[in-house]
């Protein structure tokens, strides 16, 4: 294919070519950043929490006022829940994964450290916590009953006699070493606490992309507490398939036990997940729609402008056909022309995409764009151009050679 005539034709139609090229460049820049964000948010909202999500429901339990026999009431609730048919186990705590509320502490290797070695989310729970959440213990043991102490609200900072940590936290605290049996200082305490067990995974309660918790997503610690507070979360694990029935019955059981309470937000962990990642999924859908619209607009723009060029050059095309150019040669002409514009647009687009991403990295604390996205984006834009140019190119090829003799 001879490029010279194409280039000289483009020179006479600079602005049109530039308009298409710039459109393609911006399309590419937006497309690959949007795809990147979509991929990240989808991955974010699919992260496993480490809990047995399909069989857990949770609720907030708020007592009216601050009853003096709080601990006895809570123990009675838990005993009632645990003895319900279909219930595997239940625990009272301060938080659960994806609840977006919880406690954070710093964990340090020595008491005078200025900056903690790692941040960790704290989950309070007694010896039933591991079984209730369905966590997999990969080293050490569960708490025993003597280790579980009372925590009278958040500001009671009596340190626990032992903790269980996640694998990620253990590796962060003691890289390359066995964390089991080691001791750490949690929350600025002057007394160190031994790690008695390590679980495979337990996500922190916060889910927001780039938000609190995103920097220590899998650093969790379970502290052996009876969380004696006027507001506590009850977490209940049921046998597979019993979620809906047990959930309904549980509310009734608790109200029958004592009606001076509020059961707040009783939900399955699946509903909690849907809720926690709702805005992420929303962003994914909106970005997808905008991307689709963007691609469509750019494609129609190419169709429109190329069609115009075809109609402008009807006579020249007729003459070329009369001089022996095949239909394919005409089609190739427009395809090559579009390819040249798209290639230039893609080059500019990749540069813009990287620039846009760098700016987003600095302002939105986003991650760096994977080079693969720019590559895929460039190919998509080239393909888009070729697809869009097909129809006007075929129209051009159907111009009869006789036109050369008829016109003017």
């Amino acid at each position, binding site marked *: 294919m001879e490029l010279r005539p194409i280039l000289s034709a483009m020179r006479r139609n600079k602005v*049109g070519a530039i*308009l298409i090229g710039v459109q393609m460049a911006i399309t590419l820049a*937006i497309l690959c950043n949007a795809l990147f964000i979509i991929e990240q948010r989808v991955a974010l909202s699919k992260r496993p929490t480490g809990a047995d999500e399909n069989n857990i429901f949770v609720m907030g339990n708020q007592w009216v006022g601050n009853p003096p026999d709080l601990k006895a009431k809570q123990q009675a609730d838990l005993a009632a829940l645990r003895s319900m048919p279909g219930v595997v186990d239940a625990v009272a705590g301060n938080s659960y994964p994806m609840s977006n509320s919880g406690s*954070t502490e710093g964990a340090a290797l020595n008491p005078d450290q200025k900056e903690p070695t790692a941040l960790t989310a704290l989950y309070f729970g007694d010896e039933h916590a591991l079984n209730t959440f369905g966590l997999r213990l990969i080293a050490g043991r569960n708490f025993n009953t003597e280790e579980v102490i009372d925590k009278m609200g958040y500001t009671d900072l009596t340190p626990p006699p032992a903790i269980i940590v996640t694998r990620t936290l253990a590796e962060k605290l003691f890289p390359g070493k066995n964390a089991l049996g080691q001791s750490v200082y949690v929350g600025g305490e002057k007394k160190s606490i031994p790690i008695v067990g390590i679980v495979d995974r337990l996500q922190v309660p916060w889910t927001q992309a780039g938000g609190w918790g995103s920097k220590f997503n899998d650093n969790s610690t379970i502290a052996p507490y009876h969380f004696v507070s006027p507001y506590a979360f009850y977490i209940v694990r049921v046998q597979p398939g019993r979620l809906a029935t047990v959930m309904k019955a549980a509310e009734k059981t608790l109200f029958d036990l004592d009606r001076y309470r509020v059961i707040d937000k009783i939900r399955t962990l699946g509903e909690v997940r849907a809720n926690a990642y709702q*805005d992420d999924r929303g962003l994914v859908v909106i970005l997808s729609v905008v991307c689709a619209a963007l691609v469509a607009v750019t494609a129609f723009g190419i169709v429109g402008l190329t069609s115009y060029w075809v109609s402008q050059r009807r006579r020249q095309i007729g003459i070329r056909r009369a001089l022996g150019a095949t239909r394919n040669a005409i089609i190739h002409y427009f395809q090559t022309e579009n390819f040249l514009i798209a290639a230039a647009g893609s080059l500019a687009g990749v540069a813009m995409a990287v620039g846009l991403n760098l700016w987003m990295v600095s302002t939105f604390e986003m991650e760096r764009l994977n080079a693969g996205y720019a590559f895929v984006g460039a190919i998509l834009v080239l393909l888009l151009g070729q697809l869009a140019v097909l129809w006007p190119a075929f129209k051009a090829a159907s111009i009869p050679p006789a036109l050369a003799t008829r016109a003017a």
Partner: protein
Amino acid sequence: MLNYYFTLALRSLKRNIVLTVLMIAAIGVGIGASMTTLTVFRAMAGDPIPNKSRQLFAVQIDNWGPKRGIVGGDEQNLAEQISYPDAIGFMTARAAHRQAAMYATGFALTPANPDLRPFQVQARAAYADFFPMFEVPFRYGAPWTQADDEAHADVVVIGHDLNDKVFGGSNSVGKTLNLDGHAYRVVGVLERWEPIPKFYDLNNDKYGKPEEAFIPFTRAIDQQLSSWGNFNCGGDTIPAPGWEGRLRSECIWIQFWAELPSAADVERYRAFLNNYAADQRRLGRFHWAPNTQIRDAKEWLGHEHAVSTEVRILLLVSFSFLVVCLLNAMGLMLAKIMGRAGDIGVRRALGASRRAIYSQCLIEAAVVGLAGGLLGLALTALGLLGLRSLLSDEVNRLTYLNISDIAIAVTLSVVATVLAGLYPTWRAAQVQPAWQLKAQ
């Protein structure tokens, strides 16, 4: 003449209906996408208290020192909230025109009807100045007084919805509410009051509704009502056990706002804060130079990133999309106008000036812009409807179109399209009449 150009524009648009539809569609889609996100953005970035956003100040003081531990502060090492001792120190000094310490808490409300179950009420403990300071509108009754603050009175101001729910919307002033087993006397009922964002406490639910019940801070402390918001103990600030220990601790959990009407007041208050911090140092509580800050409501919203990252990303993406749509329309307009070079040549030969050609083409562009804007508005309404089904309830409160948004959409569309039409128009005006006539 304008009328004539308008008729010409319509006729020309009708002649090449495909290009016209493509142009209007491109502009409409671009306007629709960008207006949808702009509406949400404007709500998030909006000024929740426009009359006073430059006179209301969030107060910050460093009570943890340079060794601020795990949670970090801003660039000045300051956190959003303050400790109880400082809140009491500021309230005792009363150095501002108005001031209020406040925190989020909550109750279980026991209805008078024994058949109904208790339900949860989000509440805010605050000082009396909260209401006049934030211009909170009252439907019935009035705020409690400073005397009530000092008397630790059992009084409550309730929101519009709670009044509907408990008292059927009637004037409930003087009636009592059973909150966590204690009787509180209703002194005021609010009109619907929903500042967006909820600027006075951005820690939780920043686009959420305000609390439904307000009680005196002093009474809340007596009742040992714990904070339902962020409660932060870091560094060396381990509190002693119990409620008293919590109050005496350096943990930060209270928001503090001051009303400072004039620049002189602002200066005086800055000086007061620094003196206060210096005093604390003399008393041996702080071991560092005074580090304090006040920020007015507008600055505070920027400082606290009131606009979510998601919305900023969407705004960026949708406005880039609008640019693509406009480039597109520009290309199509160029094609359309150059396709009519012959007509333009004839008009020029018959005596039309360049100016006349300019007006004609720009009016045509404006007509396209107007049509695109109207289509864009319809798409915006559709887009907001879509957002409402996709996003959380909290964000849903931001998806409403008001009159100014409609004006913005149409103006934006017309102005942008006319701008995009400038180059094609210029090209049209360059058409040489003789050349065109010869070519025919």
